[in-house]
């Protein structure tokens, strides 16, 4: 195949009538006659259907008979038929990337049905462009990179642990890194889980136990990830534990770093009055049991204020934290259960108890006489002190249109989940993006919800945004499946259409590194290099390189310029041009 590069291009052109689809509008024999006059064209013919078995055989025969080293088929869109014609080339010993399609159906005969003469002239132009481009085509190879069947999971909360178990049970080796001294994450701070009222600590302990006893899971507690270099299948990880560095290799990386509760400093007297808590702080009180709670807060009247620090006008906390409505209903239920005579008020903007089972909980809460007061964003409640450590909550009831005053002995603030402070650092280490809300940002909200654009790195759980346990686990299973694919295959295919940097021209300006959506450009010793396994072939870097140091395989400047220069006939045909190296 290498020799073809050196040879003078010998282009074969096959022009398809597509029955009457093209032939009924475009004068195909005339186009064929014209094609024969083009530079580098060694052979041209027309067929009724080039994509038929007969048409394919004719291509193969002509390649052999005329020693063709480039093939142009003028027919339909490359988006459907390119693989078929490339296959014919391969069968006849021509590299598939030396094939070019001229689209004279979708872009010509079908849109110019009432102008057959003009359509014929345009078809000639399209064929001329394709032949010009074909003369500059070069053979390309798709290749494979091996994948280490080992995963690194960052974060030992319920999402990370579930994902670790899922992968380990499929036979993969897993490193589970947790920054805290013990596994469990956020669940350790929670009392009961909605909607089933499961004991959160028991759920956690079961998972921790399974993880600790699994032979394929290497648990690294009190561990931070210092660096992750490399690319899918071949990541080199440096982890730090008690100041000691360890290095290991993995094939995939899963981010499961979770989230933390937003601390509403300066809001509703949170840092002024002892009896203003957040929901997670209330759960901690629940965890210590009713007797312990009796000593501090034997509540007669409790007010829970929703959307504290959430759904703000501007990012980063413009989002709905998704879980707080259910958390408030659940915790209000615990208070009503422990102190049946107490009054519990949930002061809300909108109750968002979406989906299966959750709305039933909302209804049940109403039946158990938990009271709901609607407030609007422009008239938030106020918390002011009363004697005996009690608090007055003044709220404008938006549905009744009147002000209410509640003497409370406990005020609970429902605050959103916010990203852990380590996410910013980790996002830089792994070169994966954060959204406006500073949670990790997936590649596509609907189509690739747990992937990053960078292959081999995935995200699950609340590191990606607020979620409850069920939703986090769904994502934990999803990432396990996504990561298992390449690890089970032990290899990934790389694109043939990738960027190539000319180190002589590169000045290491980092523009390509900055623009590459896939983290494929790495600057080493002041020069950019491309990780083929990460490059998707978009060419954004090549279009931006001021030094013109980047060539896009199969979409080189030569090839595109050849099309630009031949799009309209403005000068007489030149003698054949040899392709540049």
């Amino acid at each position, binding site marked *: 195949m290498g020799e073809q590069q050196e040879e003078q291009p010998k282009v074969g052109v096959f022009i398809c009538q597509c029955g009457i689809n093209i032939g009924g509008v475009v004068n195909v024999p005339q186009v064929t006659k014209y094609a024969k006059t083009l530079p580098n064209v060694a052979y041209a013919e027309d067929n009724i259907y080039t994509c038929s078995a007969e048409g394919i055989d004719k291509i193969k025969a002509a390649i052999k008979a005329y020693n063709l080293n480039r093939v142009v088929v003028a027919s339909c869109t*490359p*988006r459907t038929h390119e693989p078929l014609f490339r296959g014919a080339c391969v069968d006849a010993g021509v590299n598939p990337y030396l094939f070019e399609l001229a689209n004279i159906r*979708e872009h010509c005969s*079908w849109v110019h049905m009432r102008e057959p003469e003009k359509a014929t*002239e345009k078809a000639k132009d399209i064929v001329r462009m394709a032949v010009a481009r074909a003369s500059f085509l070069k053979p390309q190879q798709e290749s494979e990179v091996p994948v280490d069947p080992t995963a690194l999971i960052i974060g030992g909360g319920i999402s990370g642990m579930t994902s670790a178990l899922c992968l380990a049970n499929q036979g993969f080796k897993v490193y589970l890194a947790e920054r805290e001294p013990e596994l469990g994450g956020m669940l350790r701070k929670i009392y009961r889980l909605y909607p089933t009222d499961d004991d959160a600590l028991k759920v956690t302990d079961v998972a921790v136990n399974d993880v600790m006893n699994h032979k394929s899971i290497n648990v690294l507690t009190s561990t931070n990830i210092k660096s992750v270099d490399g690319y899918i299948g071949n990541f080199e990880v440096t982890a730090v534990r008690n100041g000691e560095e360890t290095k290991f290799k993995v094939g995939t990386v899963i981010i499961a770093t979770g989230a933390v509760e937003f601390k509403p400093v300066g809001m509703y007297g949170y840092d002024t009055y002892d009896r203003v808590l957040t929901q997670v702080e209330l759960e901690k009180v629940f965890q210590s049991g009713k007797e312990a709670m009796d000593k501090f807060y034997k509540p007669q009247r409790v007010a829970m204020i929703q959307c504290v620090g959430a759904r703000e006008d501007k990012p980063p906390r413009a989002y709905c934290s998704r879980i707080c409505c259910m958390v408030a209903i659940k915790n209000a239920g615990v208070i009503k259960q422990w102190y049946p005579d107490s009054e519990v008020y949930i002061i809300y903007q909108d109750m968002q108890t979406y989906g299966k089972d959750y709305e039933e909980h909302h209804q049940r809460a109403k039946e158990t006489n938990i009271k709901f007061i609607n407030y609007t964003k422009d008239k938030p409640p106020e918390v002011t002190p009363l004697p005996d450590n009690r608090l007055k909550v003044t709220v404008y009831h938006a549905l009744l249109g009147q002000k209410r005053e509640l003497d409370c002995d406990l005020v609970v603030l429902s605050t959103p989940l916010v990203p852990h402070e380590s996410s910013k650092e980790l996002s830089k280490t792994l070169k994966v993006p954060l959204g406006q809300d500073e949670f990790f940002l997936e*590649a596509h909200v609907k189509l690739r919800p747990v992937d990053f654009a960078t292959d081999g790195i995935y995200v699950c759980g609340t590191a990606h945004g607020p979620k409850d346990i069920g939703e986090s686990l769904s994502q934990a299973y999803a990432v396990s499946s996504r990561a298992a694919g390449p690890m089970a295959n032990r290899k990934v295919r790389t694109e043939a259409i990738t960027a190539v940097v000319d180190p002589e021209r590169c000045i290491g300006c980092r523009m390509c590194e900055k623009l590459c959506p896939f983290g494929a450009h790495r600057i080493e010793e002041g020069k950019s290099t491309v990780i083929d396994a990460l490059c998707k072939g978009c*060419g954004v870097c090549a279009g931006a390189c001021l030094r013109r140091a980047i060539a896009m395989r199969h*979409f080189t*400047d030569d090839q595109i310029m050849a099309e630009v220069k031949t799009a309209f*006939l403005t000068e007489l045909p030149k003698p054949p041009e040899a392709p540049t190296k």
Partner: protein
Amino acid sequence: MTEQFEPRILGFLCNWCSYAGADLAGVSRISYPTNIRIIRTMCSGRVDPLHVLQAFKEGIDGVLVTGCHPGDCHYITGNYACEKRVKFLKDVLSQVGIDPKRLRLEWVSASEGGKFARIVKEMIEDVRKLGPSPLRKELPESAPQQ
């Protein structure tokens, strides 16, 4: 001059959205005039300012660049890079005496065959109003007919 001026338009279409949109125009048999020639790139972000400038240098009367809608780019952010470049190019064009209206950027999705055809029609009419490019080249009269 009795004959109407026929603008020459060159289109750079990204493979994933706009080229597929142009295909759909064909599949749906939505006709538009024959003035446009199309170059396929994988992403609108591949279009180099030099490709566009070369097109104008060749005497082409108008250049259309189309990509995926914001947020829909197959390569995540390639179309944003393209948008910046087109803005920059419009500046350059106006400085060298080429009306920046001769360069147009549009977002066309794979489902917008009708939109693609409409844009091509609009662009041809707009460029027709502007008249031939100051760099317009004509085939020598002695040239044999194609």
